């Protein structure tokens, strides 16, 4: 495996019962790059994540660079509102050092002493996970991933369940993280505009690989049609609209 390759996937196949969810997927991810995965609902994007994380059984080969540290930010977690677990307690599952926790929270935009970063006038640390807004929850999950000092961050639809203003914060955060040395970012998205703006490469997925490469080169009418079917006009109409889900 070449040094600049972080992940190499070949002939990946995932089946649920007799249903083929992913078929013959092969691609590589370069170190320190940003990859966007796009595709319609049910295309198998989250399944692809779960397969490369080793959470579900698969056929084919998934090969990570040796000793790679992976940070995973799952899609919109449904945490019970009455779960008596504070942000501080949650982050301590990963890291006991209070200073590092403070730093990670600051890195995701919860700054000390700024009132808009307080949750109901309380430091976010003492807030229960279930009381966080969608955007706050997402940032806490990113902080959790960052505490493991990852080489790669996997975001499964980072803005699902996040309101419009929160969405921008999340993407600003992702672009800030891109500047970090040796941090590869892989994210699943619905929004083409975001893909153009942030991704080095894009992977169009609809059960099988439809296209792969720099967004400006590989996203064209043909690949979009293959991805989303004849309904392509509908999609373009929504392009650039942050409310689209």
């Amino acid at each position, binding site marked *: 495996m070449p040094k600049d390759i972080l992940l190499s996937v070949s002939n990946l196949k995932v089946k649920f019962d007799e249903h083929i969810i992913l078929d013959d997927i092969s691609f590589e991810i370069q170190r320190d790059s940003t990859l966007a995965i796009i595709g319609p609902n049910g295309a198998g994007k989250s399944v692809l994540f779960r397969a490369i994380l080793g959470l579900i059984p698969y056929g084919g080969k998934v090969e990570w660079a040796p000793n790679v540290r992976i940070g995973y930010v*799952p899609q919109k977690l449904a945490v019970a509102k009455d779960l*008596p*677990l504070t942000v501080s307690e949650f982050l301590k599952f990963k890291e006991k050092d209070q200073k590092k926790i403070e730093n990670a929270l600051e890195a995701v935009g919860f700054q000390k002493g700024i009132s808009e970063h307080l949750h109901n006038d309380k430091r976010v640390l003492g807030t229960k996970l279930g009381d966080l807004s969608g955007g706050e929850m997402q940032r806490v999950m990113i902080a959790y991933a960052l505490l*493991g000092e990852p080489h790669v961050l996997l975001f499964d639809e980072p803005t699902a369940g996040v309101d419009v203003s929160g969405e921008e914060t999340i993407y600003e955060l992702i672009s800030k993280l891109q500047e970090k040395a040796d941090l590869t970012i892989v994210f699943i998205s619905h929004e083409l505009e975001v893909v153009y703006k942030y991704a080095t490469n894009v992977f169009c997925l609809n059960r099988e690989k439809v296209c792969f490469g720099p967004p400006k080169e590989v996203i064209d009418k043909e690949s979009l049609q293959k991805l989303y079917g004849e309904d392509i006009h509908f999609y373009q109409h929504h392009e650039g609209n942050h409310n689209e889900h």
Partner: protein
Amino acid sequence: MNTNLLFLLLTGALVGAASGYLGSFMVLKRMSLVGDALSHVALPGMAIALTFGLNPILGAFVALTIATVGIWYLAERSEIYPEALVGVFFTASLAIGILVTPQPELLEALFGNLEKIGFVDGIITIVAAAFIFLLAREISEKLLLGVVSEDLARSSGIKMPLINLIYLFLVGSIVALGVKFVGTLLMGALVIVPAAAAKNVAKNIMSYQLLGILFGIFSVVFGVLIAKFVGISSGPAVVLVSIAIFALSYLFKRN
């Protein structure tokens, strides 16, 4: 107060502490029904042990271990918790247990009998409860991370199936230890009710688990004292004390 009673209270307090602690995870994992139903499995095990002249705790332990492996297998196999199946299977084992338990022992097996707790039972219980408590503490963070997201836990390399199996095994063990105090019919309540009460008032995990433990201890100690001095079965006494705590915690939550 004689030393016998003190010894009984100490043993009971440890069972109550471990039950409250283990229950705190069970309530968060939304497995309360399992905790309750699991205790019913102890009965046929105790009956078989009694028939062969063995220690009923041993019989309960063996039956519960088999049952926990069964539950674990079902839970790991399917996305949705097989709640109905658990209910059917465990009520069946209760019915069979009632039929096969020798008549003189039936009542105390169902509701607990303090008089039958000997010195050896007590020592076994104290050592085992302490062990259960320490092992549960060891896997506590992993279990809680699994409550937040099983995928997140597994993606950080935690073997959740193994952790869940250890956890269920600990629950089975504490139920086996507690049946002499509380009886098979109500032992599940000692696992669930103190934790449920703690959840009503807790602000964070630390206070939640601490209160679960304290409520568990209080339920057993106070329940045993009532049973002893009023002359009623210990099981109902212990469980009613825990229910009273739950009622108070609920009022506290509403205010």
